[in-house]
């Protein structure tokens, strides 16, 4: 993978190949700049490149991989994680972490199914309101009171799980989705692709614009990159932090609601541990856990990558889903090692 990339990098910038002369300082600087660009490329598009590679491999190796039905299945099952990971991307770029999203996802599903008895609007509004409020509360604790995101959202994870169990009578009551319009939101859609996928695409596009082209997005990068400097430059640090957790809570609730619509019921056991998948997808997508670096497209590639790995393992057939987790885990380690190496080549000064 390294070689073709290096050539692309050179071609893209139109830089002449290093001259044949002895290693003059400028040639060294050129090499450093090339390494820098290569590192940058891998950091931001590494997940996409691996995704592409795996897709090619899947197409060649398995007849059933590149079929419309299979690809649809991959994107549909990935879309819920993608929505959660989108919010997680903002949180992690801001230098935080949100462990509560798995619980919020489940709670959102239960509340949506419960609310669907009062119609489509309630089915969406109830989970968004509750999960948004919980996200907001976490954001206030982290932003205004300066508490550690890990602790606050771990408390959120446990507390929300308890809340979900209370709502569902310790899981004994499963609310079924009763509103036809709401169920159709999870099960139908144009061109044979269900609405959650379209919603994910729209949200991801909005996320790119929000992150790259608005003041809020700049603030998220600034806070995650250097909080002290950000505050000196007049960035509203507290407000930015509160907003990212609010956003993350809202998106987790929405993903849970859409999942309930797809399954026609508020399932209380699916989605436990989803926060870890979301973090994995974000990190695989090139966002640094230390904050300040990353993006939405990488996260989306990371989500799809996890989905494709799972799908390929299913294609093999005789492997259990446990193997999928081992492979995902191994992949995550690889990515983190690669980031470590890359950040070393990039931060020479």
């Amino acid at each position: 993978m390294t070689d073709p990339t290096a050539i692309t990098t050179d071609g893209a910038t139109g830089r002449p190949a290093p001259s044949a002369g002895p290693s003059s300082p400028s040639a060294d600087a050129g090499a450093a700049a090339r390494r820098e660009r290569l590192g940058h490329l891998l950091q931001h598009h590494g997940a996409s490149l691996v995704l592409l590679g795996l897709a090619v491999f899947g197409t060649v190796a398995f007849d059933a991989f590149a079929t419309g039905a299979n690809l649809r299945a991959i994107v549909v099952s990935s879309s819920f994680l993608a929505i959660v990971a989108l919010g997680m991307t903002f949180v992690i770029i801001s230098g935080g972490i949100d462990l509560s999203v798995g619980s919020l996802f489940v709670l959102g599903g239960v509340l949506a199914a419960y609310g669907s008895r009062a119609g489509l609007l309630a089915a969406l509004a109830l989970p968004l309101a509750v999960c948004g409020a919980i996200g907001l509360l976490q954001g206030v604790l982290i932003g205004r009171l300066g508490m550690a995101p890990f602790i606050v959202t771990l408390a959120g994870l446990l507390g929300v799980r308890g809340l979900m169990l209370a709502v569902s009578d310790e899981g004994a009551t499963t609310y079924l989705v009763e509103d036809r319009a709401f169920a159709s939101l999870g099960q139908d859609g144009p061109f044979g692709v269900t609405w959650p996928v379209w919603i994910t695409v729209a949200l991801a596009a909005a996320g790119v614009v929000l992150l790259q082209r608005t003041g809020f997005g700049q603030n998220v990068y600034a806070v995650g990159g250097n909080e002290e400097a950000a505050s000196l430059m007049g960035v509203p640090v507290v407000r930015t932090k509160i907003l990212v957790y609010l956003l993350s809570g809202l998106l987790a609730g929405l993903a849970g609601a859409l999942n309930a619509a797809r399954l026609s019921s508020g399932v209380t056991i699916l989605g436990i541990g989803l926060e870890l998948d979301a973090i994995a997808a974000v990190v695989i997508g090139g966002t640094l856990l230390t904050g300040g670096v990353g993006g939405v497209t990488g996260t989306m590639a990371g989500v799809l990558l996890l989905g494709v790995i799972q799908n390929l393992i299913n294609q093999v057939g005789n492997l259990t889903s446990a193997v999928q987790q081992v492979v995902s885990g191994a992949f995550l380690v690889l990515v983190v090692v690669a980031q470590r190496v890359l950040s070393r080549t990039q931060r020479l000064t």
Partner: protein
Amino acid sequence: MGAADAEIPVLEADGVSKRFPGVLALDEVSFALRPGEVHALVGENGAGKSTLIKVFTGAHRPDGGRVLVEGRPVAFGSPLEARRAGISAVHQEVGLVPDMSVARNLLLGREPRTRLGLIDLPRLHAEAERTLAELGVRADVRAPLRTLGVGTRQMVALARAVSVRARVVIMDEPTSSLEPREVETLFGVVRELRDRGISTVYVSHRLDELYQLCDRVTVLRDGRVAHTGPLAELDRLRLISLMLGRDVAEVRAGGVTRFSGEHAAAAEQPVLEARGLTRRHVLNGVSVSVRPGEVVGLGGLLGAGRSETAKAIVGALPLDEGEVTVAGTTLRRRRPVGAAIRAGVSLLPEDRKAEGIVPGLSVRENIALAALPRLARAGLVSEARIDALVETFMRRLRIKASSPHQRVDELSGGNQQKVLLARWLAMNPRILLLDEPTRGIDVGAKAEVQALVDELARDGLGVLLISSDLEELVEGSDRVVVLRDGTVAGQLGGGEVTEDRIMAVIAGDGAGDPSGEERHG
């Protein structure tokens, strides 16, 4: 800039005091920055420069006195308020976001927008390029800030300060890691700012730079203003004597230190030889040698590379070039501190709290810490042997503690220093590097530590003594190596070791003999 404006200082401290637990960091300091001037702020460690800067930038609130901006009293509640009042500090490390692009850093919060309210990237980049070009800085505004050199990063910080309409720019040691070429560009930018009527407070230890760039100077010493006035009227020697608090004319006959003068430094081979220690921006070919029983002083201003030399010798500072020989054996410089310790070199660091004592542990544990591997047999350490060792050193160094099990952070500064000394003496070192061994400890303890250093040298230890206290340096050392800007500026031996001569060498008057090192090589 009207003539009337010139009368009102753009930034002023009027009798500002600031007290920290145990220290009066600023004692009624008055300072006035005129519009469009470059004002040097100098002083040794602990003189109060950083505290004054922090008062100006809103990081500290003064306990007494007033801060005025253009004649109006202000009370900054936060650094952001100071920035809004037009006072920008340009630090090397903080102030910008390294992973964001140059343009985004430069215009954060003031990005040009499209009609939809989104950030207009083409205009963002164009505007950033123009802002930098006006200051004569060329950089790829799309690149992440961290890919730029330190110098260019500082220019970006300056450009940002200017573009948010700063009236005062405070620069703290801006050139300490710049290449000469970058320094030139930086000076160009500072002069450009001056021409636009922006005032600069310039903190640096590099006298050459001060004389090149600054109009006036304020010298702080021990929290008080020692001098303020036009820089051109002050010659170097006078400036240094003001910083160090030593009168040029004043010749001291008998000291009050407890050093007993010359040691029997026989014409033996040096036990420690450091040759050509070099590290970019920090040390440039520093060579020092110490013979058994000799106390060699390392003099120079703050930032001249004294502590760095000591750290380089023990291997705590990675070197680009140079080698260290202990008793004829060359230490491999890639090896970390362990090699130096095993070879018998011990460093008593400058910052006791950060680099020396382990506050939560007892006196006994602190003393035994480094010696543990030496006391261990097959990985097990005999408690009795530790007790014996600790007992010996507590008695020998007269460490005042209620028991060996008292927590070390409950002791006085002087006793903490002795605990550290005991730790290294327990290693049976051949060479002791002492970095400011008496700073921050009371007079009595100071005399005891000084007497101890003397005693150790008489016992045949080679000692490298770093001290900002000229008197201590003169009376404690047999020879003094003077550093300036990371190089050996001169070496004084025997009768030449006087405060006047040391100051003259620091000032660069050629009084020392830079090639003196060769005689011992």
